[in-house]
């Protein structure tokens, strides 16, 4: 393990993947996983803020009970575009396509992913999908909700449902490619000595994610192709007018979209395992339990889709089976939370920015997960289904969980990616603002939901106003928390302190090479001789 000395001021390496080659071609035709990660990072950041603008407009409208800022149709388009952009163009690819793409090959000691050209192709396909999504928006938007329920989407709305469907199918293919690449890389390209039991947990969780990506995403494509055909040719699969069954659409949609929730959260869990260990200077507590809980989540995640449909007209007995299985999927998540907490026990904890995000993740994800159990409990779900309670739960997992993990990971690996440190003080402030703003935005929505405020309401009865105003106020705080990193990350590209190879004194192969890494990652093939997170064996502390 490399030992970092504090006395020598680190300098930027002379040659690295960023200055190896210049010009637009060198980026657009790159096969380097690190550069592709950056292409993804830039595209995803765009969609994150685009989705964020839609969210801001939604919260602005909901300040007052009357629907006075936008027309109903406009409002419906806003929440649809917010959902579609955030889920398919940000959350699903977020950690795997950026941090995963950058770090996973480094972590396994490989020169690149198994199929570098397919990796580049996945970004291009994502961009084609993104183009369709933007084209849909420019040509008037779509107002089906991100769930596209039939027969509303197929027979009643006159917006560009088919166009949007094509965009999402494309984005889906890009994640299939990413998943395929990760799986083959983990199987075939691990460094000598890097057994499965020595893989970093980030690799395990991305591996589990990849399994879901390649198994579930084709179902989304099938569903959306059928939807597009139904919309254009009325083939009679989902629309009862032509002999179809609208509930079938929900089964097919959630068969992808529930596992997709785990596509969105598992990589985040992997990030957290890296952060907690590093900033507690500890081995992870119960390595194999944390690793296998990822696989358990991936497997059980396929068996719970109908818990979105308890009041949709499914058989009561099947509802009970799905409720039971949903309880089962909560257990591996709980195991992870307990293990992370236990990892901190007797550690040597430093509260750097990535650690702040990690701790925020644990707290918010715990609330998100437990309210998920409330929703999986049948008698409870009847009342809160399709209300703001669901919105709050979902955002606790997706924003409180995934976005927090994403930001934590981005801060953690920023010095590796760019060779420079972000400024610590504003970063800590941003983490704090995000945490406060997030809770202020979404906690009131739990109460709103229990009171009965349905989701996707443009106007609402006035007794819900106080809580909605609180939520909107929180959203403006949250926006500051998200804008700050954008500013200081950009600032640090030029003015940030030079980071050195291993500013955190972290274990893991990615920290043994220069920051930013050379184009081919490792000058010689690394050999792994110890388990992951071997802190306390000559690894210096965080300074």
């Amino acid at each position: 393990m490399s030992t970092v000395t504090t006395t020598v001021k680190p300098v930027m390496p002379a040659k690295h993947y960023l200055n190896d080659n210049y010009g637009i071609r060198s980026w657009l035709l790159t096969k380097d996983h690190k550069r592709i990660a950056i292409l993804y990072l830039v595209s995803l950041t765009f969609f994150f803020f685009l989705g964020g603008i839609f969210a801001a407009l939604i919260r602005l409208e909901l300040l007052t009970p009357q629907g006075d800022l936008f027309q109903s149709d406009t409002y419906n388009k806003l929440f649809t575009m917010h959902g579609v952009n955030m889920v398919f163009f940000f959350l699903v690819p977020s950690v795997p396509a950026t941090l995963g793409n950058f770090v996973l090959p480094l972590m396994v000691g490989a020169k690149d992913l198994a199929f570098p050209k397919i990796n580049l192709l996945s970004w291009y396909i994502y961009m084609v999908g993104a183009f369709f999504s933007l084209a849909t928006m420019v040509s008037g938007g779509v107002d089906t909700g991100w769930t596209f329920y039939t027969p509303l989407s197929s027979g009643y709305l006159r917006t560009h449902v088919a166009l949007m469907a094509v965009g999402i199918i494309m984005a889906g293919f890009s994640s299939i490619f990413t998943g395929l690449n990760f799986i083959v890389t983990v199987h075939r390209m691990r460094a000598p000595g890097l057994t499965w039991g020595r893989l970093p947990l980030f690799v395990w969780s991305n591996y589990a994610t990849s399994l879901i990506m390649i198994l579930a995403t084709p179902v989304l494509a099938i569903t959306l192709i059928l939807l597009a055909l139904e919309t254009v040719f009325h083939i009679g699969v989902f629309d009862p007018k032509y002999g179809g069954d609208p509930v079938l659409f929900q089964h097919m949609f959630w068969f992808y979209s529930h596992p997709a929730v785990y596509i969105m959260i598992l990589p985040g869990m992997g990030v957290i395992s890296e952060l907690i260990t590093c900033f507690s200077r500890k081995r992870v507590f119960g390595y194999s339990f944390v690793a296998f809980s990822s696989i358990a989540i991936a497997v059980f995640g396929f068996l719970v889709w109908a818990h979105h449909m308890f009041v949709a007209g499914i058989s009561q007995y099947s509802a009970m089976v799905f409720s039971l299985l949903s309880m089962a999927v909560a257990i591996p998540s709980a195991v992870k939370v307990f293990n992370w907490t236990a990892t901190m026990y007797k550690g040597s904890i430093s509260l750097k920015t990535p650690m702040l995000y990690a701790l925020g993740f644990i707290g918010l994800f715990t609330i998100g997960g437990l309210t998920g159990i409330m929703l999986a409990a049948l008698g409870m779900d009847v009342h809160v289904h399709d209300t703001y309670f669901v919105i709050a739960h979902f955002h606790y997992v997706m924003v409180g969980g995934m976005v927090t993990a994403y930001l934590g990971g981005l801060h953690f690996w920023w010095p590796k990616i760019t060779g420079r440190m972000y400024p610590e003080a504003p970063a800590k402030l941003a983490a704090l603002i995000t945490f406060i703003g997030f809770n202020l935005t979404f906690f009131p929505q739990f109460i709103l939901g229990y009171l009965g405020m349905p989701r996707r309401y443009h106007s609402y009865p006035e007794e819900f106003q106080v809580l909605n105003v609180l939520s909107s106020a929180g959203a403006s705080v949250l926006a500051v928390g998200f804008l700050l990193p954008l500013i200081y990350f950009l600032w640090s590209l030029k003015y940030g302190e030079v980071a050195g190879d291993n500013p955190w004194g972290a274990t893991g192969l990615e920290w043994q090479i220069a920051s930013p890494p050379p184009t081919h990652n490792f000058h010689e093939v690394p050999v792994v001789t110890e388990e992951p997170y071997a802190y306390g064996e000559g690894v210096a502390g965080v300074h």
Partner: protein
Amino acid sequence: MQFKLPLFPEQASSVAIQVDAFYLFLVLITTFFSLLIALLILFFIIRYRQRPDREAEQIHGSTLLEIVWTVIPLGISMVIFIWGAVLYYHIENPPANALEIYGVGKQWMWKFQHPGGQREINTLHVPTGRPVKVTLISQDVIHDFFVPAFRVKNDVLPNRYVYSWFTPTVPGSYHLFCSQYCGTKHSAMIGEVVVLKPDDYAAWLANGKAEGSLASMGEKLFQEFGCVTCHRPDSGARGPNLQGLYGRPVRLSDNRVVVADDNYIRESILNPNAKIVSGFQPIMPTFQGVVSEEGLIQITEYIKHLSSQESDPLNNRTTPTELRDNEVPTIQQELQQGNQPAPTPGKKP
């Protein structure tokens, strides 16, 4: 903006208090575990903060602890599952003696019909103290019948009837929301449920303008559409006799047996060839687009009415296709064994 900050919705049905009790239990569990984790983290970051004089103590894990924090959450989640499932079963299955009301959802309004023929739009009057079963269908997209004060919610589908039921307890006026996104004016598809004391309810019914009971309106449609020319109780009839049909098993031409419930009757009117009664020809034209959802409900009420008038409809049998008395038990057995694709018990029709 008035400063109102309620934390609980009103409790106005018999089930509301049960749902709230379950909710409080779940909130307690959630709070306990969230606090447990938060306090542990707080304690650890203070107690084990980085200091020059001590190093982290490396611990690999503990199988015992892993078992403990797998088994305890599993146990708790099973309690939650069972409690939730029992409550759900209660919420989803209307009692037999319920007052029956019919509702049709369409973009963007609710239309209700009472058995006496009274109709309302976006308002539903119900009495306290007795179970009310609302049979619901949508005319277009999926809607959702949600009354927060009653803690009941059901998606309302365009292709089959679903049922919601509740026993109102407190007179008053409560929100009725459509909670399944249904297009442009989704958030305007709200109405109110007015709960009245039984006397007031009776007075309201008496004041309501009605052209006649639902069944009598159904009978009128039955004549108007000429149903009566084929569906006659004599041997020369070209269609099955409908006397005593409702709620009975019917043998189809492909030898399946189905129960003649609301959904069966509705389908047979709109898509007559989907299920042909054994011994009959598929000659009935479709009434898709001819009869409104309200009309379908009225005709179904009429057919139900025919059943209640005939105490022993099997003695009236006039066509060879109807079931013989000794056949009925066998068919009921078949239904129970579920060896045919017809309605599964427990499935919301």
